[in-house]
């Protein structure tokens, strides 16, 4: 994936929101990144360090919360954490294609002053 482009989009969003809320500086940025989103948290952090200088987010704390994949087994009517890329229900062994969480790529909140 291209975390640089994603972080540029993220920074634009963050700076716009900070301005809308009358904030002067962004002190912290929190993202939620799903394990199935295709984005790599470490690469996002590196990209943030590249794009944030000179903006109101320069020097801000950068936090990525990883979101684990949770699947739903239609047969068991229950959720489970898949152990790998094969989404096999641990109870009945059926394969699931229903992902309840794990695709997120979200700017969750900003800490501003």
């Amino acid at each position: 994936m291209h975390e640089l482009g994603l972080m540029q989009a993220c920074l634009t969003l963050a700076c716009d929101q900070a301005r809308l809320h009358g904030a002067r500086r962004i002190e912290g940025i929190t993202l939620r990144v799903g394990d199935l989103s295709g984005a790599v948290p470490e690469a996002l952090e590196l990209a943030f360090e590249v794009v944030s200088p000179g903006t109101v987010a320069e020097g801000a704390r950068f936090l990525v919360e990883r979101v684990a994949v949770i699947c739903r087994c239609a047969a068991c009517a229950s959720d489970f954490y898949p152990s790998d890329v094969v989404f096999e229900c641990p109870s009945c062994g059926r394969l699931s294609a229903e992902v309840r969480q794990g695709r997120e790529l979200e700017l969750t909140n900003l800490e501003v002053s």
Partner: protein
Amino acid sequence: MCRDCGCSPAVHDERASLPGEEHRVHDQPDPDRAARTIDLHLSLLAKNDHRATHNREHFRRAGVLALNLLSSPGSGKTRLLERTLVDLAGRLRMGVVVGDLQTDNDARRLRGRGAEVVPITTGNVCHLEAGMVHRACHALDLDALDVLFIENVGNLVCPAAFDLGEAARVVLLSTAEGEDKPQKYPEAFKSAQLVLITKMDMAEAAGFDLAAALDNVRTVAPQATMLEISARSGAGLTDWYAWLLERAGMRTLNKSAEVALH
């Protein structure tokens, strides 16, 4: 703003549609103000998702079956379209949008087969995005099409994350590649409605383990229909055409029903 298709500015003003608007405050910034947290929950792909929704609506209103073709470079997307455009010329009205970083070679190969072909040269962008497809569609008369093939940039990584507004995703895996592609690129395969095993005419020469490949697709992407084809020999194409005709037929029926209602 999209003047060509008459979209209103409000539809395209992503800022106006951001959920964070309701948190707006009107006081002036206070230098002594303590840090405070603003909850946002904004998708980083919101802009693309918004445009993809827009595309999807356009396709629906025009009664067009839009398909997003993904694969590694060289898996046979263009070759399959070359064959399909000719074989179904009398039965389906088809259009193609084809993306590549450089050259319009694929578009050139596809022209002269009875379909409008619009190239997208991305420069160095490794995937197609909804906005690019939207602009390319300005060069097409969607109302005159039954099927729009969107041939994505050859890449099994990035295209998976970008909704183009398609009705279905078709992922190609050739017998010249490894049987474990599904495990290596789960996001792409898990997003597919149809997986085509291509170049079946060279399976033996390539030492391709078809059973293993099908099992890998089935376990990583249980939601996908699987077909084995060869654009060169014609093997399996009947099933591919049947899949297309069935889905294109459903679109036309829905559109006719909608027109009849009004």
